[in-house]
Each structure stands twice: as C-alpha cells, then as structure tokens.
C-alpha cells in the first residue's frame, strides 16, 4: 500500500507567512482571501547537532533515549514550520513514547521468533495483524494528531473501525485484485478517510478530490514505469551496466513523480471550513532535492541525513500554501480526550506509516 505521510516533518497544516502584518503586499485572490505560504525556518547545521547528539545518547543508553530523540526530532520540524507568523508544536511526552516503544519491540520480537519457529503461528499472527491494522492506524493517527497543535489548539482524529477497515483494507485489496483498475479509487478513499476524520480543534477538514485526479496520476506513473522497462531492455542489449543505471534512474523518476503529484492532489483537495490548502511541488525541483540528498548522504556515510531532511522540509514548505478566507483566530478547541501512545508505536514497528505523503 502506498505510504502517505501527514503531520510529520514538513507538516501538512503548517503554513508560512509572507508578511505577518498583512496589508497590500500580500498576494490576495480577491474577496478577502489571503494566500499564506508555509515557511520552514530550520537549518541543516542546527538540526545536525540535535540529530547527532540524539544518536549518541540513544546508543549510550541502549535505545532508551530514542523516545526523547523522537520527541526532539519532531519538535524541531514542527516548531520551525510557520504559518501566519505562528509555528506548530509537537506535544508528546517522551515517557509515554518510551513505554509504547518497549511494548512495540517486544511484540516485534515475539512475532519474528514465533514466525521462525512455528510457521503456522506466524501465519495466524500475520492474519490477526492484518485484521488489527485498521484499529492500530486509527489509534496511531489519533495520537499523532492530538500531539500536534497550532496556535495552542490541538488537532484531532476520530474514526470507527468499520470505516477504517473499508478505507485501509477493503479498498486497497480490491484495488490490487482488479489488477490496479480500482487502485486510484482506493487511494481516493484512503485520503478521504484520513482528511475527513481529522479536525483542527472542533473544526473538521474536508476533501474534495475526484477519482480522476488519482486515475490520471496513476496512468502516467504506469506509463513512466513501462517506458523505463522498455528503455531498460533496449539499453541492456548494448550494456547491462548502462541498462541497470537507466532502469534505476527511471524508477527514481517514477517514484518522485508519484510523490509530487499525490502531494499536490492531496493538499489542493483539502479544505478547513472556508479555508483551503494548496500545493505546487514540481518534478524537476523535487527531483533535484531528492537526488542531491541521496548522493550526499551516501558520500558522507549517512551524516548528511539531517541536512537532507531539512532541505526536503524547506522544499515542501516553499511549495505549500494556506488560502485563508478570513481570520485564523476563530477556531475553537475540541473537547477532552484520552488516547494512548501504544497505537502509534505499534504502527511504527509494523510500518503502517499512514498519513498523506
């Protein structure tokens, strides 16, 4: 299943502000709307120091510090993402994350050992896991949304198991079974499910993409893959090395295309009351960021990774906007709720990795 991301580095709902005092040099679209760009103010140099100390302490504490590391990493990306002069906040408490991680690692260990020794148990567990996935995804999204705030108002996510099962299991499976024909529709259902069940405070988001938005992207993606295969076969006749290089590049290109288009569709279809989101990521620009990141990360044995994350976050923020139909000060907080971190941590261990982009 395509993994999408929401509310993680680069933020979905954070924006940048062109001009915090408002006024005539703000681009407007008429009728009192303001286009507020997102802005990511983090710096690779600054983040690198946080990141490397996180790794050092995680190693020295045999992994215990990883919960604090996660909180600091997320806080860095949230708090450096600005919209209309305000930044986002990541609220999670490291102790909660630690408890959940311990449980999650134990689960993972049991799962691996059981599958190796008792293949039948392994299969049963895998099926159980599949059935439990919608529940875990919902818990995971609920937790990570609640741990996100803007202007001191928390986000929310609430969905029923049934709805989650349809959007996250049934439709994708149907998509796969129909040799991909229903897949764009399945992607639409997933995104709808996530966005429409998300709230900022007590205000719900809405999602108005059409199947064709996904269908077109999907078709072009398939086209790119097929073109890559064709070129790969042709070039391989001459030289298999060149063939593989061409194949790898084509694969990267197709993957980046998919990410860019899906991100744009996702944001452009999302609205919050009268306000809207917009995104205009571009293939060449994103490709450049991605390729430079990959090359430099490999050359530096991974030490470039934090710089890479910051560059990517900057690119995405630079190409995402919030189109405000009025003041952003009129949202009300949602009611009290209590959600455990367990869902999110289990979700991470089993790579549920849901969100948008």
């Amino acid at each position: 299943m395509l993994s999408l991301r929401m509310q993680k580095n680069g933020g979905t709902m954070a924006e940048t502000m062109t001009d915090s005092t408002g006024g005539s040099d703000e681009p407007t679209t008429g009728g009192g709307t303001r286009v507020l760009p997102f802005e990511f103010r983090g710096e690779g140099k600054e983040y690198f120091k946080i990141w490397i100390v996180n790794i050092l302490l995680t190693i020295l504490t045999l992994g215990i510090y990883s919960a604090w590391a996660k909180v600091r990493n997320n806080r860095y990306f949230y708090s450096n993402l600005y919209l209309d002069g305000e930044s986002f906040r990541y609220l999670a408490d490291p102790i909660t994350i630690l408890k959940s991680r311990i449980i999650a690692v134990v689960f993972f260990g049991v799962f691996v050992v059981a599958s190796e020794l008792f293949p039948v148990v392994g299969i049963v567990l895998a099926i159980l896991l599949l059935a439990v996935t919608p529940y875990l995804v919902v818990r995971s999204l609920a937790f990570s949304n609640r741990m996100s705030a803007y202007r001191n108002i928390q986000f929310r996510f609430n969905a029923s198991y049934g709805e989650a099962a349809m959007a996250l299991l049934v439709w994708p499976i149907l998509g796969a079974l129909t040799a991909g024909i229903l897949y764009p529709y399945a992607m639409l259902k997933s995104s709808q499910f996530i966005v429409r069940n998300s709230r900022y405070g007590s205000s719900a988001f809405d999602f108005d993409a059409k199947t064709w938005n996904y269908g077109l992207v999907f078709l072009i993606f398939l086209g790119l893959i097929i073109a890559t295969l064709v070129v790969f076969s042709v070039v391989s006749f001459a030289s298999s090395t060149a063939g593989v290089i061409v194949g790898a590049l084509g694969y990267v290109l197709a993957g980046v295309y998919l990410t860019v288009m899906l991100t744009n569709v996702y944001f452009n279809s999302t609205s919050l009351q009268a306000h809207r989101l917009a995104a205009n990521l571009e293939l060449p620009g994103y490709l450049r960021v991605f390729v430079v990141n990959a090359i430099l990360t490999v050359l530096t044995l991974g030490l470039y990774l934090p710089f890479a994350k910051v560059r990517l976050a900057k690119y995405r923020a630079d190409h995402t906007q919030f189109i405000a139909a009025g003041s952003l000060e009129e949202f009300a907080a949602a009611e009290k709720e209590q959600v455990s971190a367990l869902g999110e941590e289990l979700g991470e261990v089993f790579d549920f990795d849901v969100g948008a982009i």
Partner: protein
Amino acid sequence: MIAGAYSDGQSSKTEPATLHRQGEWVEIRDSNNKTLRRVALSLVNITSRLGNTPRSVILGAASGSAPVAQFETDDNDAIDRLFAGSGVASTLLHRLESHIGLIASACVFTVAFVFWLVVWGVPHGATVLAYSLPDELVSRVGDHTLEVLDATYLEPSELDAGEQPRIHGVLAPHVLPGPVTLHFRKWVPNALALPDGSIVLTDELIELADHDEELIAIAYHELGHVEHRHLLRRSLQGSVIAIFLFLLTGDVTNSDLLVTAPAVLVDLAYSREFETEADRYALRAMTQSGIDPIHFRNIMQKLEDWYTDQDEDGDAMPAIFQYLSTHPQTEERIAVIEAHIE
C-alpha cells in the same frame, strides 16, 4: 519582563503579551499591562530549549487534552536567565547539542560505533547466540522453506529411476551421521541444505557434474551452512540491524530508501561471509575425506559458466554488482580453492 504571545487554549486567538516573574509567581500581562493570568511557579511547565525554536511556557497542568493556556516567546536567552535555578527551564540537552567538542566526538563515535556494530558486534553476538540455542530449536528455523519453494520455483525431479538411490549411496557416507534425506527437484543447477540436515539437489546440477566427487563437494558446502547455523545467524543479524535502525530513525519520513538500502547491503555482505565460511568448511571436509578439492573448483567453474551463458551478452557480472550479490565473486572463490590446493 519577556515579550511574546499568549493564547488561552480555548480558541486559536493569540495576542501579544509579556511575561513577568515575581518570586514564586508567574504573571502574563496583555499589551495594556492588564493581568491575563497569574500562576504559581510550581504549576508552570516550560518546554526544554531546542535550537532556536520558540519556547512555550505552559500555564497550568498539561493533562491529556484539556485546553491549557500558554505563553510563547522567541527569546530563549531571556527565559533561561529569568528561570535560572528554579528547575523549571531545562537547558541541559540544548547545552549538549551546542557543545562543539561533543558534536565532533559524537560524529566520530557514531561512525566508529556503527562500523564496529555491523562488522563485528552483530555477527559475533548472533554467532554466540546461535550456537548456544538447543539443536532442536535450531533445526526448526526455516523448516517450511521446502514447502514454500515447492509452491514457487521447484518442480518434481525427472531423474531416471535408478539415479536417486545411486546418488544417495554416493553422498550418504560423507554427510551427517545417521540417515540423510535427499530431495531431488527440477529447477536450475543448485543445491540447498535445510536446517534439519536434509539436502535438496536439482536435476540440472546433477547433469552438470561429470564426477560424483563434484556433487560431494557441493553437498559439503551446503552442510557447512547447516553446521554453522547460517540461516539462524542471518535471521538474528537481520533482526538486530532492523531494530537498531528503528531505534535510531523510527521517525524518519521521506528518506526511507536511504535507510533501508544500507540494511539490505549489510545483509548481502553478511550473506557473502556465510558463503565463504561454507566454502572453507567444504574444503576442510574434502581434505579430511581424501577427496581432491579440484572437484569443488571444477563444479564451481561449471556453475559460473552455466549462469553466465544465461546472460544474453555473456558479460561477466560488472564489478559493482558484487555488492548486490549474495555470493562472493566466483573468481574469488576459485582463487581460494586453488590456494588451498597448494
């Protein structure tokens, strides 16, 4: 007095405000100097300093999700000064993260540690663990492999009726004490050892061999895998690497490929080491049984030729691909055998 913004948590409205501290009390005043909130210091929570990000002063107990008023400011230094010594504003981690000497050491340490872990720590730990587990447990690992292979790649053998018992007779004295199970299949020239000690041979491999000793050499190589518990060790090593990566980067988002690729490359490197270990085992076993190691070399060369011929342009694998391979380059393996012969 510190300048910032105040929000009450009930709505998304924020207003410019100033923060004042009077002993054990914290007070927030609006731009007209009117008091918005007054909270005891013991109920105030200040987020730890993180780079240049805004600092939040949370005014009241932050329970699960009840709206809580907060004051936010960009002036981290002022917050640190104002609350120094009160135990409320934590800067320990920030100081570690700003200490250049520590940063530099952390870089060196991390690279060295990861290198040590991958090259020595994980394989060594896995070996110790694998050998300390009871035999019965070890033989269960991967014991469904044959079923899976039968369902996917393998087809029933088409050897002549008499061949199977003959080969069984040839191999039996050389392999594990006790009855050995041989499975014959049709696929590509290849042989596998299953953890319970049984061996799978393919028709194509048998066809390729001109001498029974070549089959014995292959059998010994496969037994090397069993003897050294390679399947289990590879599983353990892979799992540890996976957990290590999860702990370090559990929240990595868009660089997924950059994180999983190294894990795959490491696994392949481990695999090549196991193959080398199995080769060494085979050479020792052949010498002990008085079988000429040249047969091992010969069958290996024939396998290499067979697989190379399958490649349309007949290229030997370009050098770079050796890092993507589960086995060491055949030339290397043959060189090792020839060195052993001398």
